[in-house]
């Protein structure tokens, strides 16, 4: 039993007199009620149309027969309402766009869904473009995102766990898996880990991504992000776990292994033989992006005898009168390119064109003419740059960059031997890496017969390959 005035005073104190919370008092047939809502989160139309109008429509007879509460419940035209009995729950509903109806001398508060439409509609994907695939992408509204997934997976077997994360943000987070396909222990581990998260705020999925990736000291990413609901569904069917976070326009997919970053949306829609050729090119691009500048520096400063004579003459002429050692030259170009790339990502599109002029003319043409760098180095860096771009995952590109620099250093200090040393280091790093107990080089090491059919070469298939967990217990990874 509460009195409206007392309760309102209490709420006012607890919300620090927030001006956004509107208290509207109303009298229905001599009984006092109050309507409370958080203005920015609610739709004023919904409140006036469905709540106030419904309340006005309650006749005297209705109240005479029943209690006021039942009359309101009966008359209100909102599809969703909750009865709040605990004082603390008031705020969680208030901050999620519900409208509360307080009735004098009642023990129950009614919460009615009147969420305002403050998200953008479902738009087309921007970072994972596909010619033939569906054109819908996640937006910032978790309810919409869940809808996009459930629209595709019409099953009772979708396992969902709802969590609210962050002391101040209280962000809704849903962990999804498909029963019988996903691995229970991994699912439980992810949920437990998220529950244990102590943070003052999760504004966006990025915090979670870093938190879940934290054990991994390697630059290579062990979670995958995607903004496409169709990709999410495919990964779910492969037995992976997907995390949706409110206010985040992408989903986190885990576990993610190296091979996953080579598989793109478009692959599904092409014939497998055409996909295979593109995969081969991508794997080639991966190695070129890693090794090209390192090997070039190693060859040109240590192992000149490996280069064919004609090519060596051409290199020697181009290198002539370049005042810096090949390494310095390489790093100048690398740094210049990375800065341009970073700037290009951040700049609004209409300023971007001036950047490409600066990049192409000043760094390419003028640097060669001025004799600061050799044309061949520009070619090498350009090949590297092109080769690091066919990957959608930004984290992978960044990891490639770190190892590229290591390879350059190795090549500078020890020649081909140095390249070999860094290569060994890279191999150790990749093989020792786990993504939620899945070995990072999974279809290759350890060999997974099903998965390897969708790696460097893609075989035609009807079903989605299930991510194999067989070998992991044997390996006894931590």
């Amino acid at each position: 039993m509460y009195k409206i005035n007392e309760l309102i005073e209490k709420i006012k104190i607890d919300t620090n007199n927030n001006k956004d919370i509107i208290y509207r008092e109303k009298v229905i047939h001599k009984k006092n009620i109050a309507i409370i809502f958080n203005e920015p989160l609610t739709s004023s139309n919904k409140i006036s149309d469905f709540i106030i109008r419904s309340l006005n429509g309650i006749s005297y007879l209705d109240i005479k027969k029943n209690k006021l509460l039942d009359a309101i419940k009966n008359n209100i035209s909102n599809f969703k309402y909750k009865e709040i009995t605990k004082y603390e729950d008031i705020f969680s509903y208030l901050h999620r766009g519900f409208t509360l109806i307080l009735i004098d001398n009642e023990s129950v508060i009614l919460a009615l869904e009147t969420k305002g439409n403050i998200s953008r509609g479902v738009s087309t994907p921007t970072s994972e473009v596909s010619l033939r695939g569906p054109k819908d992408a996640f937006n910032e509204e978790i309810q919409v995102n869940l809808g996009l997934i459930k629209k595709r997976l019409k099953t009772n077997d979708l396992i969902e766990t709802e969590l609210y994360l962050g002391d101040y943000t209280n962000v809704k987070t849903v962990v999804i898996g498909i029963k019988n396909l996903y691995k229970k222990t991994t699912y439980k581990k992810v949920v437990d880990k998220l529950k244990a998260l102590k943070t003052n705020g999760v504004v966006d999925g990025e915090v979670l991504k870093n938190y879940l990736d934290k054990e991994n000291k390697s630059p290579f990413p062990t979670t995958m992000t995607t903004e496409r609901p169709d990709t999410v569904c495919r990964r779910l069917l492969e037995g992976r776990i997907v995390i949706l976070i409110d206010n985040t326009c992408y989903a986190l997919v885990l576990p993610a292994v190296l091979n996953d970053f080579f598989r793109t949306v478009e692959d599904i829609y092409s014939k497998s033989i055409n996909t295979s050729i593109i995969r081969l090119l991508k794997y080639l691009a991966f190695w070129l992006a890693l090794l090209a500048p390192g090997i070039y520096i190693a060859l040109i400063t240590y192992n000149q005898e490996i280069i064919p004579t004609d090519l060596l003459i051409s290199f020697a002429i181009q290198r002539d009168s370049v005042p810096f050692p090949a390494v310095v030259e390489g790093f100048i170009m690398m740094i210049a390119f990375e800065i341009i790339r970073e700037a290009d990502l951040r700049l609004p599109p209409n300023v971007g064109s001036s950047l490409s002029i600066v990049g192409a003319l000043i760094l390419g043409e003028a640097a060669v003419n001025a004799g600061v760098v050799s044309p061949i180095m520009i070619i090498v860096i350009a090949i590297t740059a092109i080769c690091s771009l066919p990957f959608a995952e930004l984290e992978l590109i960044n990891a490639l960059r770190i190892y590229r620099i290591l390879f350059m250093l190795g090549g500078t200090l020890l020649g081909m031997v140095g390249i070999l040393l860094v290569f060994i280091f890279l191999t150790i790093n990749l093989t020792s890496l786990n993504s939620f107990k899945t070995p990072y080089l999974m279809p290759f090491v350890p060999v997974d017969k099903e998965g390897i059919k969708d790696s460097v070469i893609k075989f035609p298939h009807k079903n989605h390959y299930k991510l194999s967990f067989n070998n992991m217990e044997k390996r006894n990874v931590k």
Partner: protein
Amino acid sequence: MKKIIILVLFIFFSTGCFNYRELNDLAIVSGVGIDKKGDNLLVTVQVINTVKSSSDSASSAGPKFIVFEAEGKTVQEATRKLILNSSKRIYAEHLELMLIGEDLAKDGILEVFDLFFRNSESRKQFLVMVSQEKSANEVLKILTPLENLNAKNIVDTVKSNAKYLGVSEPITFDNMIADYLTQKKEIYLPSLKVIGSENIGEKKENLEESKSDTEVVITGYALFKDNKLLGYLDLHDSVGTTFLNNKIDKTILTFKCDEKDYISLEVTENKTNIIVKDALNYEINLKTKTKINEINCAIDLEKEKNIKELNKKGKEYLESLITNALTSIKNYDTDILGLENLFYKNFPHKYKSIKNEWYQKYFKNTNFKINIDFKIKEQGNILKVTK
């Protein structure tokens, strides 16, 4: 983990950049010439000019190669003296050609090779050739058309002629040394000659007209015995020698098909096999496939009889070619065919008894029985003679 990272870092920084050499500091050698000059050796080095021209960033300014020369008692002394006039380090791992002057070749060439064989810093797959008449020094200075680098030009010429003509096979340094040291086979090397006017070859004028004044031409094999030059085979005998050594890829046989007109057959496939009967008697089996490239006689090729006739003539011609080559080789009295080795391999026990008398008693008196399986496989697109 931290310790491991620190250790790995130490691997990199504990090295002193061993063997680090920037490309700008290297003088890339494409050819080496060695001559005799008085008591000394004259070493000529052909260095690729890698100075960038001002207009085009990918081509060099001035002549495409530069020649340095130095004298010394040994090859090593002379090559080190080269540093006196070259600002860059002489870098011989891209060496393609070693040219030996005639004078030096007559005195013996093995001592010159010691450095190249012993040293790890040059690759051993370069070609070795003998320069007839002119010294190697002069040949390496000649500017050549078609291929900018003189040494590469010579190497390419030898290789293409081995492929299409069979006058000389390209003999690489490592094969030559291996043949000489491990098998009882004498050295034979392709040779070259300079034709045309004197002293123009090294000037730019040589490239300014469509017909160069001075040209380098490949000639027949230079024959050695005990690593000393004996003399040269002419072109026909050289082709015959290549046949005998089973190194023919393609070549042309031109002979008379009637009283005055000629026919050219292209050998498309050849396999030569020498069988040892005893120390004096050898059987040479050839399996040769040819095609008619050109025919000037009025012969009807539709009739099989005529083809057989041509077949017979071709066989006779090839037989004479080989017999002539064998005679010339026997006249020089040097076993470049490796018959001694062949005999040793087949009859190791008998070999001991003839070992010391091979040249005195046996080599000059060897008899050869030549069996040729000669076939004309293709007649070309037209059967009737155009005439």
